């Protein structure tokens, strides 16, 4: 019994490998300095400046971004910033941020956790209590919050994080042009989104990988990138990505994208070197109309729209697999594709899609 109870308590932690990597603390004091004051267990010295740059306390603007997240070196960081108000045990600190790094994408979970940690830190004035709570979450998956409740990891399923964005908003903003985003994602191209406000950027980009729901791959998402060398190097390691920039200079960096989305003006542009891969034909129009129709239907929820899209995608992929099976060792070749005499745009699309889905013969 004893062991069974203990076993249950340990269930959470053992079902998944350790996801949380570290927790760090950035403080801004009355002198105007923003300093990295504490972390556990450790943060790589190369990563620290990047995290500091993401924290809004180091930026010149007045506005406080309470919660931002992003990806760097295959780890997700979640930064919660709080302004210190009385009563507090902290002296000489005006603002502080808590940085949680983890391997998984789950903004809601880490936002909730960070809030609890923030409150602890404000009340206690020392990070020890915070660390205790972090360790309990790490080992037991549960943590007592001071708001008559507790934080349970199992409440925050990753699927909920994937579906938390609103695909309907994307379709309502871009209409039929959403098909360009769909095509780019399917073909694993590089998409760059620009918006001066980080919150809008995060909200928009987090939902884009849902268009290729069959892959459920949010590692292509880099929602908050600055035009600095370490970050761009890290970005270039990924063959296809969705990257969000607040810096308007990114529009001049045609080496970074195949598709450029200007979120403020709602303009999507395809760059020159990607144009022939992204030619669209009847098939695309069909899919685009389906997306628009499904999103405009007010009775269907966001997750239902995503489901509709993924059904269509699966259909296309099934066709492709069927085509591939006709060839030797289930790998498609261009000649094999040409025999079916598809219209050139569709043929081109299927060819590139086969490459993206690794169905092409080398």
């Amino acid at each position, binding site marked *: 019994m004893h062991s069974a109870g203990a076993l249950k308590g340990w269930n959470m932690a053992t079902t998944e490998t350790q996801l949380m990597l570290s927790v760090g603390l950035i403080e801004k004091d009355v002198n105007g300095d923003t300093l990295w004051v504490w972390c556990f267990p450790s943060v790589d010295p190369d990563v620290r400046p990047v995290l500091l740059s993401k924290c809004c306390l180091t930026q010149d603007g007045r506005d406080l971004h309470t919660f931002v997240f992003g990806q760097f070196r295959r780890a997700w960081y979640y930064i919660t910033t709080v302004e210190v108000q009385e009563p507090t045990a902290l002296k000489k600190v005006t603002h502080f941020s808590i940085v949680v790094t983890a391997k998984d994408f789950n903004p809601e979970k880490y936002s909730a956790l960070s809030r609890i940690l923030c409150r602890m830190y404000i009340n206690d004035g020392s990070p020890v209590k915070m660390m205790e709570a972090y360790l309990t979450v790490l080992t037991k998956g549960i943590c007592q919050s001071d708001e008559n409740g507790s934080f349970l990891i199992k409440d925050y399923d990753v699927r909920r994080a994937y579906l938390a964005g609103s695909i309907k908003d994307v379709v309502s903003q871009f209409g039929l042009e959403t098909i360009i985003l769909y095509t780019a994602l399917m073909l694993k191209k590089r998409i760059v989104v620009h918006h001066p406000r980080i919150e809008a950027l995060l909200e928009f980009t987090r939902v884009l990988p849902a268009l290729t729901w069959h892959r459920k791959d949010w590692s292509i998402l880099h929602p908050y990138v600055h035009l600095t060398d370490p970050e761009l190097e890290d970005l270039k390691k990924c063959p296809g990505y969705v990257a969000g920039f607040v810096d308007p200079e990114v529009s001049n960096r045609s080496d970074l994208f195949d598709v450029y989305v200007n979120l403020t003006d709602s303009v999507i542009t395809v760059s020159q070197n990607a144009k022939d891969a992204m030619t669209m034909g009847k098939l695309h129009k069909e899919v685009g109309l389906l997306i628009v129709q499904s999103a405009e239907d007010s009775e269907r929820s966001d997750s239902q729209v995503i489901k509709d899209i993924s059904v269509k995608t699966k259909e296309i992929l099934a066709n492709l697999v069927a085509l591939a099976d006709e060839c030797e060792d289930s790998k498609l070749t*261009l000649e094999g594709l040409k025999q079916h005499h598809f219209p050139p745009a569709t043929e081109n699309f299927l060819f590139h899609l086969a490459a993206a889905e690794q169905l092409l013969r080398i």
Partner: protein
Amino acid sequence: MEEVDKILIHALKQVGTEVSEEIDSVRQFSSELIVQAVVRCIQVIDPGLGSSLPTSLPPGMSARFRVGMSLAQACQEIGYKGEIGYQTFLYSNEPEIRSLLMCLVEKLPREGAETSDQPTGKSVVLQRGIAAAIKAQLAVPWLPTHCRLPLNIETQSPEALHSFHAQPLRLSPFTKGPEKKQLKVKKNYQRDILPPVTAQLSFHTSLMASLLEKHTDELSAAQEWDNEWNSQGLLSRLTPKEYRSRKLTRLRKRVKEQLRAAEVPASESAFGGSRSNTDLFELLQTFKGSALSDLILTKGTHFTHTKKFTFEQESASVTNPIPSGHQSESDIQDRQQMELAALQHQFQQLCSDGDQLTADMKHISVTNTQMLNELKQSELGISEKENKMQVKKKTIGLLPDADDNLLKLQVLVEASTKRLVNLASQWEKHRAPHMDEYRTLKEICSNHDLESSRMMSEIRSLHDKIRISTEEARKKEEMYKQLVTELENLPQDVSRSAYTQRILEIVSNIKKQKEEITKILSDTKELQKEINNLTGKLDRTFAVTDELVFKDAKKDESVRKSYKYLAALHESCNQLIQTIEETGTILREIRDLEEQIETENGNKTVSNLERILDDYKCIRHENSALAAKVREG
């Protein structure tokens, strides 16, 4: 009175009156002189009034009379408040003339007001001299070469003029203070090798221009540096050397950036971004223009190259058969057609080859990306699987005794958690004081910064004040020097210091006299009071005595007699006192009359009366003559 007269005479001389040297007081002015002086003054004061007045008395009596009247009128219009009429000029007396002349001289416009408006500075004196000299030269009329006086040849001939042509000069720099560290080589160069300025020029005539140019150059550079240093340099809190070096690097960077920005061709910026249409960019484009065309030639595709090559080959093969004898026309045509077909065939093949190559390239790039993807994924998968394998290995190792191991693990984890928390609290004990210290030190530092910036601004304001004060001091010095030179140049006939001394003396005299007068007045008051007292006492005493004695006088005879004597005594004393008072009054009257006699004596009344009588006789003569003329004609 003499000083007043001297001043008047001096002023009148300045106005233009011809006062001879022997006359040194107004008493000696004749009527002619008076009239001349007054007319000249009026002409200066008010040219409109003065133009109609003659400067000398006409001979005829009636004319003189008329002139006198008009002069009196003019003087009244100018503003003389005293009594004035023709008699003031024709039959003058000293005090009236003196007051009239003083009034006129005061009304003369002041010349001193002009100089105070002009700018000060000893260069101004020089400039005025230059202006005067140039004016004089311009005033000289132009004459042809052979008619000119040798005095003017130098200034009027064109050889004296040269165009302003400045040449660069090398001067040894002026170092403030002993520069002991100056290199020996430099010193030797300056002493032995560097030629003097006059020898450095190829045209001797450009010496002035070159010197002026060099000096202005250095002066403007120094001024600009001063301005920049005072405004930005002090703010940056660097030494001048550091500031200069920083400025240099900054400028170099900017130049580099400009060139770099112009270098990037416009096509690189996406969607025809911002093309810098600066002149620099266009200039660089012209440089590139020729180069680009070369590039185009060299960048030609493999296809065009082969084409050229094949053409050359073909042309070589074509040219060969031609000189080898004459062929028939049809044969030539056939051959040409065959060659054309072959070339066309080759061309088509090359086209298809090119297409094939492009398709291959596309295919390869696509498969390449797929390969890379696969590679990446497998790499990631490998690392993840390795991690998982490690964990699973360990778990397998612990499986045999699962429950116990689980418990042990739990205990271990809790223990390490506690240890970690403990360590963290210990670390916190070390960290917190350090953070506090850092923050307090930072605060102190920023306070120091505030202090130093405040002191900087104070220093700057002090600098400004110093500058302003030095400016003012310099200006005052220059003004002083200028005034001293002007003072030396002034004519020495009128010595103001003598006048000022005299005035001060007179003032002190008057003060003394006033004191004496007040003393005398107070004495007089005292005396008067005493007299009143005594008179009062006398009356009262007499009244009392009178009564006393009168009472007894009814009874006694001797007392009656003594009463009579008392009354007589009182009477006589009263008379005495009266006489004394009258004597005093008469003495005062005598004094007044004597004064009046003196003033009247100065009026030359007797001579004036004789003259009036004479003139009256003349006028009567003239009248009768005129009447006779009228009767005749």
